[in-house]
């Protein structure tokens, strides 16, 4: 049997559209590799984080408030399948509030938990930033997660002259960010009473200006009033400006270098997702992606072309001229 319609391009266009439509039904999903990230957010809740030297929506705000807003913004930008956990740091350790859970399915729960972080959750006033960071790293490591540690880097009491304790973990095992927050110009540390009411600022004498728990510095002998037994640190008043709140970027960069993290400064752009994804270990996730729209659109294009040809041939048809001439 001969089919005269086979000579008409419209037949082939219709057949093509049919094939593409069937393709759209039967192979609608392909598997693509997507990156997901596991992250433990740890935020410093020591007193220095109450300093109102940063801005939130144009208004002066405390560092802790901006840090919380930043965690919320970052959460919103993590790809689905990522997991996020939360911890707080004060004294010398990180305390886990919840272990990492999937961000998209639990978004509202995670998002709503952030505003409840408060400096009054702090169980002690000390601020051993390096120890807090190291404990956060070991927690993140046990969760196989990366870390975003938000702090102003204000170590109080100050580090001893022997400097930073060695980091026991393997640098680079845990990826992520050490995030510095706070103004580069100094302001005073706020003082609170036992009930959490703000009662002024700390003066120079209120705050230990140097660490006298460890051995004295090597140049102690040249200090005024030095005595090897009775005054191993000398007797002069030391002012290392420890009572002033200022982001300690140099120190945080050093900590980041020691632990294999990346340092980032929390500026106007509050989302840390970009910096974090560069510094983190991505977990590759197979995700099915619906691509039926591609054969579907092609089928539509063929069908439009088909009727387009019909339209053109209708206007160019010799039939009309035959009718006209007779």
């Amino acid at each position, binding site marked *: 049997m*001969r*089919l*005269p*319609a086979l000579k*008409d391009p*419209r*037949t082939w266009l*219709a*057949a093509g*559209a*049919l094939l593409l*439509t*069937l393709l*759209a*039904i039967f192979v*609608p999903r392909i598997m693509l590799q997507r990156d997901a990230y596991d992250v433990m957010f740890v935020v410093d809740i020591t007193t220095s984080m109450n300093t109102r030297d940063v801005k939130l929506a144009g208004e002066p705000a405390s560092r802790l408030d901006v840090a919380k807003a930043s965690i919320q913004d970052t959460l919103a930008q993590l790809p689905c399948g990522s997991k996020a*956990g939360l911890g*707080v740091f004060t004294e010398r*350790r990180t*305390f*886990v*509030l*919840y*272990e*990492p*859970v*999937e961000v998209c*399915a*639990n978004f*509202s*729960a*995670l998002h*709503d*938990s952030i505003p*409840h972080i*408060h400096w*009054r*959750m*702090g*169980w002690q006033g000390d601020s051993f930033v390096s120890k807090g960071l190291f404990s956060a790293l070991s*927690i993140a490591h046990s969760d196989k997660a990366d870390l975003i540690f938000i702090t102003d880097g204000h170590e109080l009491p100050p580090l001893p002259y022997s400097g930073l304790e060695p980091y026991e973990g393997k640098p680079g095992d845990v990826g992520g960010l050490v995030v510095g927050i706070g103004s580069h110009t100094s302001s005073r540390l706020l003082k609170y009473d036992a009930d959490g009411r703000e009662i002024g600022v700390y003066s120079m004498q209120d705050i230990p200006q140097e660490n006298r728990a460890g051995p004295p510095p090597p140049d102690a002998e040249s200090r005024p009033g030095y005595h090897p037994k009775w005054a191993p640190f000398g007797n002069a008043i030391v002012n290392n400006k420890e009572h002033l709140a200022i982001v300690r970027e140099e120190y945080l960069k050093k900590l980041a270098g020691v632990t294999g993290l990346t340092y980032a400064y929390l500026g106007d752009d509050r989302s840390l997702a970009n910096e974090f994804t560069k510094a983190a270990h991505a977990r590759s996730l197979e995700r099915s992606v619906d691509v*039926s*729209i591609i054969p*579907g*659109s092609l*089928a*539509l294009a063929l*069908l*439009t072309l*088909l*009727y*387009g040809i*019909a*339209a053109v*041939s*209708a206007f160019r*048809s*010799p*039939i009309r001229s*035959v009718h006209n001439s007779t």
Partner: protein
Amino acid sequence: MNLALTYPWVLALIPLALLPLTFAIQRRQGYPSLAGVEPDGLSRAVDIGLHLLGALAILSLLAAIGGLHLKGQTVERVGEGSHVVLLLDRSSSMDETFAGKQATETEASKSSVARELMREFINRRDHDRFGVAAFSTMAMPVLPITSHKDAVLGAVDAITRPGLAYTNVGQGLALALSMHEADPTAASRAILLVSDGAAVIDRRVQERLREQIAKRPVNLYWLYLRTAGAPGIFDPPREGVPDTPQAMPERHLNLFFQSLKVPYRAFEAENPEAIADAIEEIDKLERNPIRYQERIPEIDLSDLAYGIAAGTLLLLLLAKLAEVRLETGGALTRSKAGSTVAAARQATDNETKRLKEAA
């Protein structure tokens, strides 16, 4: 109906569906005169049908490309359950075993036993919403009351992390109550306190707690994980031990809870089985009607639309393949005496010839 499109811009392409209404998939062919052809209802119907099929094919393809779906929605249902705030003790003694020793591989710590049983409890309670608060030296809000169970499980998992120093029950309880206050919905409310010790609650804090509880009554459950040798909740004071909160904080916390005039149950668990029993009991007690939200997922209709498009395209294609050519068809098929159209055409040709001759 909750029909929705993922890409609404496809609506702008709807005028494309006018094309098949105007133009046909069949080739336009010349025919000398239609005067001799009788009007045929079936042919008219097939013609209109083919035009409509073309329009339907384009519309269904547009719907499929646009991601037509039935919107997901949340419906409110009534079931059994309540809103429970888990108030978890995160003091470091929770990291020890029931024998008061360091946890080993064979003997789990109190916190990990409590974690497993609470996970089971949370998973079993389908319609409950949970909030999580932790307390040790200070009270710590962890998760506001939520229906996202994974997040709640994440918070419960964290209790096996090393704990802090003290057991500040009073502050923790105040926090749990304020979490209930922050939750506006009407539901049966419960606080499940899981701790392995108690502490003296300051008299002022006691007064505040009484006020809070009077404002919003809750069912109170205390799951006391008793370490070997530790004083029990229900034990009367021994000889020579003064009956004061300082000497017997567990007993006096129990007395305080009893004085709150809300439904209260205390469970003393000295081993994992006892915890399991207690949790079973709480599961039975907390069965009150609750309105809960159920999410009905989105239903994708684009495959259905593609199916309709494929069906119409198949019909169009068959119609197209059934097409015959009038101009050459007759000549080609004459020898095979194939189509009636060719025969008809020949008849018409002869007729024309005859008419011309007559003229």
